[in-house]
């Protein structure tokens, strides 16, 4: 028993966030398959639980994992409220919590035991707000899903964009349960900004993009920009030509040009036929990497505190490029890439054309 | 004792284009044994629905004990003693006859809002329920769910409920329909034996029973009152014969009409 290191991975495996769960789980499993399950003399054991994106479930599962299974690390967290609900348990039980998907800025502040391997929305949107004014975009309408991450994206994009001299002429918020984007898009079309900035959870993005095309917005001279969520690699290929030319900013593209990523993508697609790794998969993969590093550094000894300390400042090459964990905030610092959707070999990709290096989470530099 | 207890004046009820009740004026005296007869669809049931507040009148007023109750909620009319039975049984399917009657008695005694006592705990409730059960020969089925009872028993319960409400005015809508021939008289005798100051309005197509029961009759045709009078007057009225009773001899051969001689 002593020689087992347990990771409790709580993810939404059912419900609307199920794809997130699958990608993260696949990422974690891929890392473990590539690096063996013995680290520093410990046998690493993975316990996967489904919380269906219900925070009460997440919290109870975390409780059970800590109390009954004595896990050494908690990980996963598909949505922000789940992560926040688990935070007190991480603190009380001194168990590190590696957040692999949820992207609201404030999460890492909820407990000194939280470390993030995904990204934050401010990170992604701010980069875009820097790029846009330099590329002929002076006026923007923002359109975001009406919930925490969407509001984060709207806020940080707007602040930075206006700071950079741009003008946000209108900010629209779409209810999460919204079957038809028509009225919102029509409103944007009537306002004729240079570009429409969009954040929706991946999934809804495809529908939006199609309606964007159908409404002839591109022909009316409105460009579509957004965080990488809307051109999620997982689905990009099926979106068809409407997605072409969309400019997004994100921390990972399946198309990222590095030997390490090539290897990662190949291995991932081999292990999960028909699935492209997206930014969620990388979050899981790097999260597992982080945990392995921590076990190694702490020599497999010491409790949660030792593990978190070992994670702080951890720096390594990820399929998305170099990343490191900010020792103060325990949040991830990484490159944010600007990408454009292009067609290569009959498939659609987010092709990176610019990079802003070492972006810290702007949400924390108040 | 001849004062009017329940009356309506100029009562009208329209269902879309159909005028089911057309300017009906009717008086029910204290202690009356009054029968309301008329062809099918004449508006008898509708009139009862109006009097008890199940339907809202298109026009007209209803007075109970000298007070206008036209706008009073149905359940408050019951509290003032205006009680009815239904042509088609309206029972509480999941309760037993005993529970049903205990409930009605509790409600009648103003205990219906008590949530802290048990049903049947209050003095006299169980006793009164038991008494009614026996009176209507429901004793042996007292603890069966109402929905499993035979039709005849359900019919008896329907009437027992009305009596449990301690009516001052009782409106009976074809109470004996479906009750076996032998038991009909008996049932109406129970009703007839109500205290002398209780007024009863009876709707019934069994002329045998009607003539043996009523001391006053009103004939309703096409929503309007055709005539009113003593049983003898009604029986002799040629108009009533044409529209309701019929002339033919052949019916007398076997129809319940023959029994009316002993009125």
């Amino acid at each position: 028993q002593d020689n087992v290191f347990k990771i409790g991975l709580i993810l939404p495996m059912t419900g609307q966030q199920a794809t997130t769960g699958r990608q993260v789980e696949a990422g974690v499993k891929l890392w473990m398959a590539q690096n063996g399950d013995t680290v520093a003399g410990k046998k690493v054991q993975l316990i996967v639980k489904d919380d269906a994106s219900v925070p009460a479930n997440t919290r109870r599962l975390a409780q059970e994992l800590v109390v009954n299974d004595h896990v050494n690390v908690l990980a996963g967290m598909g949505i922000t409220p789940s992560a926040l609900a688990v935070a007190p348990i991480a603190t009380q039980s001194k168990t590190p919590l590696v957040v692999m998907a949820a992207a609201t800025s404030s999460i890492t502040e909820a407990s000194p035991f939280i470390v993030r391997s995904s990204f934050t929305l401010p990170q992604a949107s701010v980069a875009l707000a820097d790029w846009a004014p330099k590329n002929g975009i002076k006026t923007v309408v923002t359109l975001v899903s009406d919930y925490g991450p969407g509001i984060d994206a709207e806020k940080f994009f707007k602040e930075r964009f206006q700071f950079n001299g741009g003008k946000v002429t209108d900010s629209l918020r779409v209810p999460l349960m919204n079957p038809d984007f028509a009225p919102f898009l029509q409103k944007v079309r009537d306002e004729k900004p240079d570009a429409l900035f969009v954040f929706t959870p991946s999934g809804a993005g495809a529908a939006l993009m199609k309606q964007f095309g159908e409404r002839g917005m591109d022909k009316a001279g409105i460009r579509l920009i957004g965080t990488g969520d809307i051109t999620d690699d997982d689905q990009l290929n099926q979106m068809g030509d409407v997605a072409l030319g969309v400019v997004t900013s994100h921390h990972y593209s399946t198309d990222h040009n590095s030997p390490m990523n090539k290897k990662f993508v190949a291995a991932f697609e081999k292990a999960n036929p028909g699935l492209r790794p997206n930014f969620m998969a990388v979050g899981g993969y790097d999260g597992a990497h982080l945990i392995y590093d921590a076990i190694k550094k702490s020599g497999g000894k010491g409790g949660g505190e030792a593990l978190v300390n070992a994670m702080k400042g951890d720096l390594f090459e990820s399929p998305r490029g170099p990343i490191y964990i900010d020792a103060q905030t325990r949040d991830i610092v990484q490159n944010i890439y600007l990408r454009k959707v292009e067609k290569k070999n009959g498939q659609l990709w987010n092709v990176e054309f610019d990079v802003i290096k070492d972006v810290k989470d702007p949400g924390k530099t108040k | 004792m001849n004062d009017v207890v329940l009356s309506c004046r100029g009562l009208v009820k329209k269902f879309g284009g159909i005028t089911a009740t057309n300017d009906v004026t009717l008086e029910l005296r204290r202690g009356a044994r009054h029968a309301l007869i008329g062809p099918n669809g004449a508006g008898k049931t509708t009139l009862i629905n109006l009097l008890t507040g199940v339907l809202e009148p298109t026009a007209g007023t209803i007075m109970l004990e000298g007070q206008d109750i036209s706008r009073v909620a149905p359940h408050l009319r019951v509290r003032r003693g205006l009680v009815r039975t239904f042509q088609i049984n309206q029972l509480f399917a999941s309760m037993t006859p005993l529970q049903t009657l205990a409930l009605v008695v509790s409600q009648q005694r103003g205990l219906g809002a008590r949530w802290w006592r048990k049903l049947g705990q209050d003095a006299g409730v169980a006793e009164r329920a038991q008494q009614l059960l026996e009176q209507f020969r429901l004793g042996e089925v007292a603890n069966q769910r109402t929905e499993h009872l035979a039709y005849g028993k359900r019919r008896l319960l329907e009437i027992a409920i009305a009596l449990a409400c301690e009516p001052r005015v009782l409106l009976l809508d074809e109470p004996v329909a479906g009750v076996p021939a032998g038991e009909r008289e008996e049932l109406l005798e129970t009703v007839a034996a109500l205290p002398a100051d209780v007024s009863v309005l009876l709707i019934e197509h069994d002329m045998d029973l009607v003539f043996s029961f009523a001391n006053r009759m009103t004939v309703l045709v096409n929503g309007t009152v055709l005539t009113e009078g003593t049983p003898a007057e009604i029986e002799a009225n040629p108009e009533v014969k044409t529209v309701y009773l019929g002339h033919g001899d052949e019916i007398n051969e076997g129809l319940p009409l023959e029994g009316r001689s002993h009125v």
Partner: protein
Amino acid sequence: MLTILFDGIAYGMLLFVLAVGLAVTMGLMNFINLAHGAFAMAGGYITVLLMQRLDVPFLVCLPIAFAGAALLGAVLEPPLYRPLYRKPHLDQVLFSIGLVFMAISAVDYYIGSTQQIMQLPAWLKGRTEIGSLGMGHYRLFIIAVCAALTVGLQYILAKTRFGSRLRASVDDQRVAAGLGINVNVVFLSTFAFGSGLAGLGGALGAEVLGLDPTFPLKFMIYFLIVVAVGGTSSITGPLLAALLLGIADVAGKYYIPKMGAFIVYTLMIVILLWRPNGLFVRQGGKA
């Protein structure tokens, strides 16, 4: 302005196509079939998969989606649904929710949980502008299909005896059979037809609403709203309700985007408080 009206109508029509099958099973058969969305999902997946994997043209897919979902309904009705017609509504809810759960997991297992995206043929992708009115071709198409459906359904229910035989069977199976109505056949064909309509709705809706395994749950509320507001005793009721909701929703979101989701819900509550049996009930209704 006109564009908003047009979009609203198209959206309403889409809601109608999706919900009309439910109006048939729930309104006419008095069966609370929450699994309606599962049949719609079946139609959607049939279309998407045929198009993606076999390159079947969209127009050919639509009748196949209808037939596929109808067949599914016809296969499931005798063993699963028939025993339930006489059970309490709550049991029907429990049962059909169970079916939804199974459908969601099964689709997830066999096809995966990602959003399926459909590629429309080019002639449906465009847009026609007439003055200030811009009309997406696909939306025009939806309106046309829906109008045709309404006319057809109305004909079947009003002009043929089928409608009254169906309602008679629902009211009293025993007596209906005793008077010569083959109750089982009537129910089976109605149910299959309702499921087929759901399938068609799913096929048409996948483009606008997206398609993933959670589809039946995600849109269940919308189906129910349409049927509840429209009343369950006719086809025109749900149609008008769907149009009303579609237009109100689109216009509301255009003119007062801040109100977002409140509009539809508030409208529904207000209508239902005002007309508890739905906007359009059969004359007289239940007493």
